[in-house]
C-alpha cells in the first residue's frame, strides 16, 4: 500500500514539476532551441521519477541450477571448467588448490563421498589413480579428461636380464613442440643410445644397449629439447650372472662339432659329459667340471643330473630300448631338454616326428644365419641343402635364406625339443667368428635347457610402483612363508583361486631399490619417484578414471528444470546519466543564450 502510494506521489510530483518547468521554458523570451529544451525538461523530470521509483522487469529463468560437485585433479585446465553458481569445487592436491584457489582442499576422498550422496561427481584433469578411485566407493562420476600428456606416455623394458642380453627400452613419445626432441638412454653417466622424435608427432621409440655390468643399475631416459635436458624417468635393471648348465653330449663317433662345442662350453665353466662310441657298446667318456660316473646306460638318475642332452639323430636311434624310454620319460615328465642334430637316416623317431626334413637338389648354400629374428653379424656358414619343413606346433629358431628353417623347437611334455640341420657350425668358430658361434648355440641351448627349479621366488609388481602410493605385489610361492619388505614383515593374502599366489600391499616410503625377502632369498624391486615417468603415470590415471567413469555412470534420473519468474531491478545509474545529460544541456543552453 505504502509502495503504491509512494509511486503515485512521485509520479504526481514529477508531472507537476514538468508542467512548471515547461511553462518556464515556453515563457522564456529567447525561443531558440525551444523544442530541444522541452524534450530535455521532459526527460529530466521523467528520469527524476525513474530514480525515485523502483523499476524492475520480469524474466523467466532456470532457477537454482542443480548442485554440481567438481573434483579437480592435476593437469586440469581452468578454461574447460564450466562455471556455475551452484558448483562446489574440491581438490585433494595442494598444488591444484594453489592453481585454483576457489577449490576446497580435502584431506581425503572419504569426505567427498559423504557430501556427494546421490549426486554425480565431475572429475577434471588427469583423474585419479586406481587406489584413489576405489575410495570413491562406486560413486557416479563424469570424467572430463585433459589432453593426453606430452612426453613419454608408454614405456617398457625387461627389468631382469641375464649377462650378455641386451637391454631394450621401448616406448611412445608425444612431441607437441615445433622442435625435434632427442631422447638419450644414459647409464653409468654415459650416453648409450639416442633417438630423435620429429616435431609435432607421436612416435614409438626403441633404444638398446648391452649392459656391461651385473647387479642392479639404474639407467635414465632423458630428453633434449633446445639444449635443455630433462630427465624423464629411471630405468632400473637387474642383470644376473649366468648360471652354468650341465650338458650331456652323445655322439656316434668323435667329431669336430662335438669337440668344439665341448671346448666352448667347458671353457666357460659349464659342466659337460661326452659319450662317443668307439665301437659296438664301447664308449669313450669325458667328464669336464662334473663328477665321474658311468655313462654306459642312460638311466633316469643319470639323465636327471643334466639340463640338456645333445646328439645326432642316429645316436638317439641306436639307443637301447630301455635307454630310449628313460630318455623319453625324463624329457616328458621332468623337463629335460634335447637338442637333436637331424640327419637323413629316414627312421621316424619321436624326436623328429614334428620336424620333417626337405632336401633341395643343387649346390649346398653358404649364407649367414638369422637367429631369433636377428641376422648374425658376419659368418657365412655352409648350411647344406637340407632344411626343416614347417609344421604347426613348432617354433622356427634359426632360419637361412628364403626363410628356410634350419633349427626349430617344440615342446615335448614338460621338456623341450630342438632339432637342427646344422652339422658344421664349428667352421664359424674355426674361422674366428666366435661371436656368431656363441649366438647360435646360446639360442639353441637356452631354448631347450631344463627350467631351473632351484629358484623359487617369483613376484610381480602391479603397475608402476610410485613412492607414497600403495603398491600391490604378487608373490608366487609354493609354501607359506613370511615375506618381509625392507626388513619389515608384511601381511600376505592368499589368492582364493590360485593357491600359490599371494598378494602383498606395501607403501614404499622412499624411492629406490626395495628388498623383498622370502624363504631366505632376497629379491629387489624399484619404487619410482613421484616425478618419474609422470607422462606414463598420467596416462595410466586417465585410463583408470575413464574405465571407472564408464563403470559408474550417473543414473538416468531426469532432473526437471524448474523455471521461475524473476524480478530484476533496472540499475539506477542509467537514469542518473540521462538526468545529468538533460540538466547539463539546459544549463549550457542558459549560458549560451
Amino acid at each position, binding site marked *: 500500500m505504502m509502495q503504491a502510494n509512494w509511486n503515485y506521489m512521485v509520479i504526481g510530483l514529477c508531472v507537476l514539476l514538468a508542467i512548471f518547468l515547461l511553462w518556464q521554458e515556453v515563457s522564456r523570451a529567447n525561443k531558440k532551441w525551444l523544442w530541444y529544451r522541452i524534450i530535455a525538461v521532459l526527460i529530466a523530470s521523467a528520469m527524476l521519477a525513474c530514480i525515485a521509483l523502483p523499476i524492475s522487469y520480469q524474466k523467466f529463468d532456470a532457477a537454482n541450477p542443480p548442485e554440481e560437485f567438481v573434483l579437480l585433479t592435476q593437469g586440469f585446465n581452468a578454461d574447460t571448467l564450466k562455471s556455475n553458481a551452484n558448483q562446489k569445487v574440491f581438490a585433494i592436491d595442494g598444488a591444484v588448490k594453489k592453481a585454483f584457489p576457489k577449490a576446497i582442499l580435502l584431506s581425503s576422498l572419504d569426505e567427498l563421498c559423504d557430501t556427494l550422496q546421490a549426486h554425480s561427481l565431475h572429475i577434471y584433469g588427469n583423474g585419479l589413480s586406481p587406489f584413489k578411485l576405489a575410495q570413491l566407493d562406486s560413486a557416479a562420476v563424469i570424467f572430463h579428461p585433459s589432453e593426453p600428456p606430452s612426453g613419454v606416455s608408454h614405456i617398457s623394458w625387461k627389468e631382469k636380464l641375464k649377462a650378455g642380453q641386451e637391454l631394450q627400452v621401448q616406448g611412445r613419445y608425444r612431441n607437441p613442440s615445433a622442435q625435434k626432441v632427442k631422447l638419450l638412454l644414459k647409464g653409468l653417466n654415459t650416453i648409450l643410445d639416442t633417438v630423435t622424435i620429429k616435431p609435432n608427432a607421436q612416435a614409438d621409440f626403441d633404444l638398446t644397449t*648391452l649392459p656391461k655390468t651385473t*647387479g642392479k643399475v639404474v639407467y635414465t631416459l632423458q630428453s633434449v629439447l633446445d639444449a635443455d635436458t630433462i630427465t624423464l624417468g629411471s630405468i632400473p635393471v637387474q642383470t644376473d650372472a649366468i*648360471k652354468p648348465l650341465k650338458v650331456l653330449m652323445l655322439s656316434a663317433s668323435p667329431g669336430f662339432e662335438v669337440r668344439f662345442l665341448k671346448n666352448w662350453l667347458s671353457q666357460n665353466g659349464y659342466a659337460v659329459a661326452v659319450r662317443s662310441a668307439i665301437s659296438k657298446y664301447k664308449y*669313450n*667318456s669325458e667328464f669336464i667340471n662334473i663328477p665321474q660316473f658311468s655313462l654306459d646306460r642312460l638311466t633316469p638318475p643319470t639323465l636327471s643330473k643334466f639340463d640338456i642332452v645333445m646328439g645326432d639323430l642316429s645316436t638317439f636311434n641306436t639307443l637301447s630300448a630301455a635307454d630310449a624310454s628313460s630318455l623319453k620319460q625324463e624329457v616328458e615328465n621332468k623337463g629335460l631338454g634335447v637338442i637333436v642334430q637331424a640327419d637323413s637316416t629316414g627312421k621316424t623317431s619321436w624326436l623328429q616326428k614334428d620336424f620333417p626334413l626337405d632336401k633341395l637338389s643343387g649346390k649346398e648354400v653358404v649364407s649367414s644365419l638369422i637367429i631369433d629374428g636377428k641376422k648374425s653379424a658376419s659368418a657365412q656358414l655352409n648350411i647344406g641343402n637340407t632344411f626343416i619343413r614347417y609344421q604347426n606346433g613348432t617354433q622356427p629358431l634359426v632360419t637361412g635364406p628364403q626363410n628356410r628353417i634350419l633349427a626349430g623347437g617344440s615342446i*615335448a611334455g614338460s621338456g623341450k625339443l630342438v632339432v637342427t640341420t646344422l652339422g658344421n657350425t664349428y667352421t664359424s668358430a674355426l674361422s674366428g667368428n666366435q661371436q656368431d658361434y*656363441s*649366438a647360435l648355440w646360446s639360442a639353441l641351448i637356452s631354448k631347450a635347457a631344463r*627350467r*631351473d627349479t632351484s629358484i623359487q621366488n617369483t613376484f610381480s609388481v602391479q603397475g608402476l610402483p610410485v613412492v607414497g602410493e600403495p603398491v600391490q605385489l604378487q608373490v608366487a610361492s609354493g609354501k607359506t612363508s613370511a615375506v618381509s619388505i625392507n626388513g619389515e614383515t608384511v601381511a600376505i593374502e592368499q589368492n582364493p583361486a590360485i593357491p600359490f599366489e599371494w598378494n602383498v600391499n606395501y607403501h614404499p616410503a622412499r624411492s629406490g631399490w626395495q628388498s623383498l625377502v622370502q624363504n631366505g632369498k632376497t629379491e629387489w624391486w624399484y619404487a619410482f619417484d613421484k616425478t618419474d615417468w609422470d607422462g606414463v603415470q598420467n596416462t595410466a590415471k586417465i585410463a583408470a578414471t575413464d574405465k571407472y567413469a564408464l563403470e559408474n555412470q550417473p543414473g538416468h534420473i531426469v532432473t526437471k528444470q524448474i523455471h521461475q519468474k524473476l524480478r530484476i531491478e533496472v540499475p539506477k545509474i542509467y537514469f542518473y546519466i540521462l538526468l545529468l545529460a538533460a540538466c547539463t544541456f539546459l544549463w549550457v543552453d542558459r549560458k549560451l543564450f
Partner: protein
Amino acid sequence: MAEQALYKINALRHRWITYQVLADAALSAAIALLAAGLFLLLGWIVWFAFPVFWASFGLMLALHRPWRVRNSKIAGFLDKEYPELQESTGLLLLPAGELNVLQLLARSKAESVLYNLEVEHKPFAKRLWRSVLLLALSALFFMAVKILYHSQHHKWTRGIGIAEQKFPMEKILPQIDGIELTITPPAYTRKTKREQDRFNLSAEEGATVAWQIKTNVAIKNAFLLFNDKERISLKNTGDGTRWQAAKAITQPGFYQVSIDGKLSELYQVQVIKDAPPVIHVKTPKPSTYIDAGEAPQVNIITSLTDDYGIADALIIATVAKGRGEGVKFKEYKLNFSTAFAGQPKYDVQKLISLPALNMEPGDELYFYVDAKDTHQQQSRTDVFTVALQDTAELLSMDGVLSGANLKPEFFRSERQIIIDAEKLLKDKDSISVEKFNARSNDLGIDQKLLRLRYGKFLGEEDETGEGPKSSDGVADPADFSNAAKILKEYTDDHDKAEDAQFFEPAIKAQLKATLTEMWKAELQLRLYKPQAALPFAYKALRLLKDLQQKSRSYVAKTAYNPTPIKLDKRLTGELDKVIQPINKQEIKPGADQFEGLKKAVEVLEQLKIRPVLSVADNRVLQVANQQLSVRASAQPGIYLTALSAMRRILSVQKVNITDIGIVERAIQKTLAAPKLMPSTDGQSADMGLSRSYYKNLKQAKP
C-alpha cells in the same frame, strides 16, 4: 656539335664516377686489411675482415654518392683544369634558345675547344692514387703482422706442445708458493730444454724432469709419489723453503706431491713416444719384370720421414741366381747417395744397375729399404722383387720338340729372327751402313712373312696372293657359267671365317697379341733399329711359347682300387679286450679381470641414493681404486680424473654425485661387453601346476 660536346661531358662524368668507386673500393680494402692485421694480432678469425670490407665500402658509397654528380660539376671541373675553355663549358649544358648572342659565341667557341680537348686521366684518378697508396701501406702492415706474429705464434705452440693445453686446472697444496719444472728432452730429439710452472707435464720419452718447489713456510720433508709406488724425495736447498728433485721420465702415469705428510691431488705425466721412421717407396712397384732388351736397371725413389730425425737408411738387396736346387743367394748392402744428417724428412733415390750386381737373365733381385731414426728405432719396407727375363730358356728348343699341335718351324722362325737380329747388332761395327740397313730390312720382311702365316690361323686376309693376276683364270671353257669360280676370280675376299681354325677365345686373344708384337718388331726392323725391335720379338716369342704350352695335354693318374670287403665278416671282431677310455678334467673359467670394477658399479649405484659408505662397500671400492690406478698409470689422460674422483669418494664423508658420475663413466669405458652364453629361465613356484598342464597337454595331443 653541341650533342657531341654534351656526349663528351657525359663520358667524362662516367669516368669520374668509375674512378670514385674504385677509390672507395681501394680505401675499403685498405681498412679491411688493417682490420685483418688487428684480428690476427688478437687471435681472432682473419676472415672477419670480409664483412669489414663490405661495411666500409657500403658506408663510403653512401657518404660520397658518386653517381649523383651533375654534368654542371664536370663542366666546372673542366673550366678549372683547362683555361682554354674560357670558363664557358657551363654554357654547353644550357639550351641554346635561352642564350644571348655573346653567350652563343662563347658557347660555340667552347664547343670546338672541347671537341679537340684531350682530357687526361690524371686529375680524375688523384683520389684513387691516394687510396691505392694507403692500400699498399696496409697490405705491408698485414704482411708484417702475419710474418712476425704468426711465426712467433707457431714457435710457441711447437715449444710447449698442444697436448699440454688439454690438462685440467690443477690444485696445489697451500704451502707451495711456486713451482718451476724444467724438462730436458733427450738428445735425439734435438730440442732445447723448456720450463713450465705447472705440475701436469708431458715430456718426450727419456726426458729428464727437474722440479724446483718453493714453499711459503719452512717445511720438514717433501717427496714426489709416482704411480702410488715410487717415491722420490725432494732435497732441501735453502732453509726449508726450496726443494728440488729430478727424474728421467720413461713411462706415463701420475704423481703426487707430499709436503709434511700431506698429499696433493694427482698430476698427469704424459709421455710423447718417438715414432719409428716412415718409409714410402715411390718407385719401383712391388714386383717388376724386366723384359729382354729393356734397360737392366732399377731406380729406387723413396721418401723417409720421422718425428725427430733420420739417422741412416740402407737398401738391403739379395740377388737370387740359378734355378731349382742350384739357386744361390748373395746379399748386398747399398747406400743411398745422400748423407743423412738427422733431418726429419729426406727424399732419396738410388739407381741400381743390375749387371753391376752380377745379374744375368733369369736372375731375380729382392730388396727392401731399412731406415733408422736418431733414437735408433728401425723400420723397414716390404720386400720388392725385380726379375730379369730368362732369354736362355726362351730360346731353348726343349718344349718345342715335344710340342703337339702347332708347327715347330714357325717358332724357329721367330727364334731365328731374334738370333739374326742379335747377330746383326754384333756385326754392326764391322759392316757398312747400307748393308746393315739392308739386312735389317730383310729381317723385317721375314718378320712380316711370319706374321702373315700366323694371321692365317686367325682367318686374316692372305696378303701373299696380291699382285697382278693372270686374266685367264676363267678362260677355261670347262668353267663356263661356274658362278663360284667367277666370283672367286673377280671379288676380293677378305677375312674368311672358314679359314680360321677353331681356337679357344683365350688362345685367339693371345695369338692376336703375338701378331701385334710382331707388327711392332717389324716396324722397328724396317726403321733399321734392330735393337728397338728386340723387346717386341722376345715378347712375341714368349707368347708363342706360352701358346705351345697351353696346347699340351695331360693324363691324370689312375685311382687306387681297394679289394672288396667281405660283408659277412664285418663287425664280428671280439671287443672284450677293448677298454673304454675315460677322461676327466676340471676347467675353471678364467677369472674376470673386471670383477672388481663391476662390483664397484653396484656400490656406486647405491651411493647415488644413499651417500653413506659402509665398510664392506669401502673394501669393494678400494679394489676398484687399485684397478683404476693401474689403468691411470698407463693412460693418465683418460683415467686420472676418474682416479682422483674415486679417491675423493673414498676419503670424504659425504659423497659428491658428480664424482660418482666420473668414476662410473671411466668404468663403463673400461669394461668389455659380456659374452652371450646359454642360460635357462627359472621355473616359477607353481606347485607343479605347469608341469601337470604340459603332461595333460601331451596326453591330449594325438
